[in-house]
Structure formats: C-alpha cells, structure tokens
C-alpha cells in the first residue's frame, strides 16, 4: 500500500485537535480581535515593497524598462468642483473624462462597490486610492500603473475618490488640494 492508514488517521486527529483548540481560543475576545486585525485586515504591500527594492537594490527582473515607453497620455487630474461624499470626495469633471492615476502603484481590485465600477490602486506610499464611477476600464488586475497613467473613462461627469491607509480613511484634503 502506498498510503499508510495509520499515518492518515494520525494526521486527521492532529487536524481535529488543532481545529477544536483554535475554535476554543477564538471565543476569547482579545485573541479574536488580534487575529481579525492582523490576519484578515492586512495585506502584503506590493507597491511599497517594489518602491523600496527599486530604491536600494535596483530592478527586480534583469533589464526592467529596457525599452522607453512612449508617453501617450500624461496629464494630471483636473476637476471643476469638489464636495464631500461618504468619507471621500466627489469631483466634478468633464463629460467622459479620462482619469489619470494620482500616483504610481499596483491595481489590486477591479469590480463593483456600492453599485459603481471601482478600481483600487495600492500606491507606493502605502495609501490605497479607491477610484469609483467608471464606464470603461483600461487597466487589468495586478497591472503596475505609473504616475498619470490612464485608468479608464468616467461615467457622466462625477468621479468618487476615497483614500485609505491600513483600512482607515485618510482626509482627502491632504491629497487633493
């Protein structure tokens, strides 16, 4: 026999013991909060890691950026009016405005949030920027976007932005002046 029955039974028992002890432990509120905070609410900061690596050690893969990319789209975010919206900011922009990224980073989420098409960019300064209300999205998941690179086309004329750091909202007035 390839599989030893004894070993399988022992493995199952170990898993059971671990599972039961863990489920007892999690009844304790402190441990529950600790695990929830450290396991479910944090992620690897890809963009920050890459920024630090590039700063001190250079490119990760040999011959990164060998070919200079021709810059087709390069303009900063422009808007006509701004107002508070749901912990973030609502910017009034031109109709079908092409949204540039505020700062370089990695796209970590594309999908629907609050019924709006959403892009989340994790930036190299470890702030997550949530861009909402797109009609067309030009990037895909885990793309690295550069400063002012086009993200997509806005629906109608309002763009919603929310800034988060470690899951907590950051005041937009520090970033959008």
């Amino acid at each position, binding site marked *: 026999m390839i599989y030893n029955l004894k070993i399988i039974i022992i493995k199952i028992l170990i898993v059971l013991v671990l599972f039961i002890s863990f489920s007892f432990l999690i009844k304790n509120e402190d441990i529950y909060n600790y695990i929830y905070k450290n396991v479910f609410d944090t992620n690897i900061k890809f963009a920050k890691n890459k920024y630090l690596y590039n700063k001190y050690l*250079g490119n990760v893969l040999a*011959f990164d950026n060998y070919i200079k990319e021709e810059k087709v789209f390069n303009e900063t975010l422009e808007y006509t009016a701004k107002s508070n919206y749901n912990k973030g900011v609502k910017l009034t922009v031109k109709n079908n405005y092409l949204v540039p990224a505020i700062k370089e980073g990695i796209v970590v989420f594309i999908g629907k949030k609050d019924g709006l098409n959403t892009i989340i960019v994790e930036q190299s300064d470890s702030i997550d920027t949530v861009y909402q209300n797109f009609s067309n999205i030009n990037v895909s998941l885990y793309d690295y976007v550069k400063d002012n690179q086009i993200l997509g086309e806005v629906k109608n004329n309002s763009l919603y932005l929310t800034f988060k750091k470690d899951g907590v909202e950051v005041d937009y007035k520090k970033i959008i002046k």
Partner: protein
Amino acid sequence: MIIKRLLNKLEINKYSYILLFISLLTGLFKEIVIVYIIVIIHEIGHVFVSKIFRWKLKKIVLYPFGGMSIYDDLIDKDLKEEFLVTISGPLFQILFFLLINYLYKNYYLNYNDYIIFKNYHYSILIFNILPLIPLDGSKTLNIFLNKIFNFRISYDLTNIICTIFLLLFVINNFNYSYLLLITFLLYELINIYKNKKYIINKFILEKSLYRSNYKKYKTIFDKKNMYRNKKNIIKNKDIFISENHLFR
C-alpha cells in the same frame, strides 16, 4: 508522451525560487509569468530543431533570467546543424512575438500586457545575442571562429572576446540585482577556462575514435591543432597519419 519526456528533463535552478519569492513580494505576477513564457518558448525553439537532428538532450535548466538546454553529445557536431540549433531559439522567440503583435492588433491583448511582452521580448533577445559565455551569442561566435581557425585557437579566442564583453557588461550595467547574473556568468567563464585541457583532449579522443564523413582534408603538424568538421592528417617527419590511426 513527448511533453512528459521533456518535463522530466526540465530542471529549475534553485536561484529561480529566490526570484519567484521576490517577485511575489513586490507584486510582479504578470511580469514573472511573461518572462518565463518567453524563456520557455526560446528553449522550445532550441529543443525542437535539435530533435530534428537527433541530438541527445540531457536537460533544460531554467535560470532566474533565462534558460539553457544542455546536450549530452559529441563536441564535433556538424557546424551547420549547430548554427541552426543556436539561432532557432531567438527565431522562435521572434515568431512568438509576431503572434503577440497579431493578437494585440486584433484586440485580444490589452496595451499594458503588450508593453510587458515587448519589453521583455527585446531585452531577452538582445541579451542572448551578446557574446557572453553560456549564451547564444558566444555559441554563434564559436561556430564562425571554428570555420576559420582550428578548435584550440577558436576556443581561446571565444573565451578572450567573451571575457572582454563581460567586463564591458559589468561596467555598463552594474546594479545589485544583476549580482546573481554576473556571478553566474563569471562562474561559467571560470569553468570554461578550467576545463580547457579536458575539452581539447576529449576532442582529440573523439576524433580518433569515431570515423567522420567529412570530405575536406587538412594537414597539420600537431594533434592539438585539429580542425572541426574536417579530416585531419598529422604530418610527423615525412610520415602521414590519419586522425583515426592516432592511437593504434
């Protein structure tokens, strides 16, 4: 069947895992996948053409920055065959990039992915053309030198040219990330210098053991100066000895 046999010969170098881990931490998922797709297409090119000529494939190794197919075969292979096998890697890579171009023009591929493909395609291609020791460039150089000079001189000349290029490469491109790459290139170069005596003796022995079908004759005075892809005749004080009768 063929794929299973090839997969058995595939070997992943341990330093590749370091690179995989770093690219996981820095979120370069797409980039690393695309780099290895290009590298594998490149190696498939070499293996495909070498299978046509029935070379014995020993293994394919995936290094952190490229692949290498290693053959367990004679040194004195047909120069034309060897040339075709060497250039088939870059050739397959170019064909693959043409396919990627076609996909991009027909909107099957988005702009960002296309840029990544383009970037790494050209960088791997140009890197492989450089005359550095284990790369395709040095092999092509060696083949052309073997057309003109004898085996020993072309071996030495290749090493000297490759050493100069490695120095230039290090001076121009120094970066901590290339440390691994440069160490690897240096290691290969030192190995080549070390194995010089062994490889030349192996070549002489091979020449004397196997009868070749080459039609060109060459008269030489020392058995160390044998030519590749020629029938060598050694002249020793008015006595002519064929290469096959050297040790008999």
